[in-house]
């Protein structure tokens, strides 16, 4: 089982090493990086490359660690007892399996994605220590212990909104997806828009990196914004000349709404463009 990127996903070498280490040593891989650099997609692509089932557990601020294991549905049991349903005598009828349980039970070695772990309560990672380490947990209601037959490949993503506890970090491999350089970016664009005109790509990339270099942007555009933007450029059939940098000194790139997602950033950009124009004139 080795991961080497897929045709839809350009994996850098360091990422491949980290992923393969996590696969071989059966330990979780924690992935951090700017929003929009493909953290969540990574898990999907690993599953695709290894032909493994994917279980995605999307964490929200209200998610409890227990919900990933199982939940006991007391209400339907109560209702069934009212209606005299036979099911009521067996408590295991009311245990709803969570994503981790599903992953533990899978016949084939699955990929378990725990998405945006930093969104949850600060104690959330601590509550999963044992489960991720031993890949087993105990169900109090039925007294059984669930053990993973095939230790899942666990991919955990974080946006750095909260710091994760040391004990948790020690159990993981860590990879920081740094922002791709221009060459890698060209590869990525090629994967998504095969046969894109060379000059359009060049102009678009240089315009994109110029926007990223503007000081003081609240939210720098990232890979996913670039891909959206190129999609728009193609749809509108914008000629590469329109992106040329001479123009860009006094012009905002066309369709900039796809790149800049923040009102203040758009204002900042328009102001800069205005300043440039007035300096020239």
């Amino acid at each position: 089982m080795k991961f080497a990127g897929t045709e839809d996903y350009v994996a850098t070498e360091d990422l491949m090493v980290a992923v393969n280490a996590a696969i071989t040593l059966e330990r979780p891989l924690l992935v951090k990086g700017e929003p929009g650099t493909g953290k969540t997609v990574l898990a999907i692509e690993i599953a695709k490359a290894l032909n493994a089932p994917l279980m995605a557990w999307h964490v929200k601020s209200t998610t409890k660690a227990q919900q990933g294991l199982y939940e006991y549905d007391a209400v339907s049991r109560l209702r069934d007892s009212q209606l005299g349903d036979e099911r009521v005598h067996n408590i295991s009828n009311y245990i709803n399996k969570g994503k981790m349980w599903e992953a533990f039970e899978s016949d084939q070695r699955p990929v378990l994605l725990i998405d945006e772990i930093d969104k949850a309560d600060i104690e959330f990672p601590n509550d999963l220590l044992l489960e991720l380490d031993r890949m087993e947990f105990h169900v109090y209601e039925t007294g059984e212990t669930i053990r993973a037959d095939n230790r899942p490949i666990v991919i955990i993503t974080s946006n750095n909104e909260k710091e994760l506890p040391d004990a948790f970090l020690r159990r993981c491999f860590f990879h920081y997806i740094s922002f791709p350089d221009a060459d890698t970016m060209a590869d990525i664009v090629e994967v998504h828009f095969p046969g894109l005109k060379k000059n359009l790509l060049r102009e678009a990339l240089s315009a994109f990196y110029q926007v990223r270099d503007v000081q003081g942007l609240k939210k720098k555009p990232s890979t996913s914004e670039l891909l959206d933007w190129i999609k728009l450029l193609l749809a509108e059939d914008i000629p590469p000349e329109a992106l040329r940098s001479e123009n860009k000194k006094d012009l905002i790139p066309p369709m900039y709404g796809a790149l800049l997602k923040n009102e203040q950033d758009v204002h900042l950009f328009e102001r800069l463009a205005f300043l440039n124009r007035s300096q020239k004139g």
Partner: protein
Amino acid sequence: MFINFFTELRSASVPVSLREYLTLLEAVEKNLAGYSMEDFYYLSRACMVKDERNLDKFDRVFGSVFKGVEKLTEAFGADIPEEWLRKLAEKHLSREEMEKIKSLGGFEELMKTLAERLAEQEKRHQGGSKWIGTAGTSPFGAYGYNPEGIRIGQDKSRHRRAVKVWDKREFRNLDDTVELGTRNIKIALRRLRKFAREGAETELDLADTIKATAKQGWLDVKMVPERHNTIKVLIFFDIGGSMDDHVRVCEELFSAVKSEFKHLEFFYFHNCLYEGVWKDNRRRRDVVMPTYDVINTYPRDYKLIFVGDASMSPYEIVYPGGAVEHWNEEAGVTWMQRLLAQYEHAVWINPVPQHWWPHTQSIDMIRQIMSDRMFGLTIDGLDGAMRELNK
């Protein structure tokens, strides 16, 4: 193995523990790094570094620890006829075969042997275990395997870079030596919680449902609103002047506080509290909120926290007109007492180390005004402060 690397990382204050080190060894044993320096670099990075802030430190340590090893490659290279080493096949050996291969000895021994082989060799060569060429098990050459092997002239590198990755130090700007300890602060702040249920009823109240059902004889579902932390906090930060020394720890505290409390209002003041406070430090001259407005706006159930070093001239506290920045009609102590009269629960958090407090007169005075509710800006101190506010 790599003990030196491990201790170097620790002394460069990259937080690595024995567990990470053992993970690395396990990974190396499983042959995850292959035998390339770069893969080993990536692997050890994934094992040892758990926070992007430490990546740069790691790169530097890696560069210094493994400097000589990389030099080996540079020592050869140029002298080897390129056609011999042309990329043909990559041979993968089984475990037993690998174990069979014995290393040749030290660096000089290798150099000597290489020189001899070069002299002996006459034509292009592939496979075998003695000659230089491709895909062999001789310690010289490329695309082959030998534990002490040297890579020579792998011209079309399987890795696309010429510069050593770790020397590029790509993560330079992510390294802030500020060790953000907000997690600990947050844990301390957690003491200050008052859960209450208000708002829409979204959760099942199991106990009440059972009770009501038993009473009625039919299923009677009872709902309750979700539990929220309803604690309300008013924070006053001392800013500028002597507080500059403590700016880092105050920023940490501030960011922790901001994410922990939903109902939070913060204001800035300078040295001592007077008739006006402000919310935006850049516009402190023009947008000042009268302290009376603060008192009138926020109800009595807010908890009051001052953060400041309380180090100033005693005049600034007790005399009208004592303030350093403006003319104050009323003394700082008067304003402090007004606030304290309104808000029953109040503490002063002081970043100055506690054993220095007795040596500064103004700290003692503020402490008296606060009726001894002054705490150090340490985890212990915060803990005490939160207990005090919860009383």
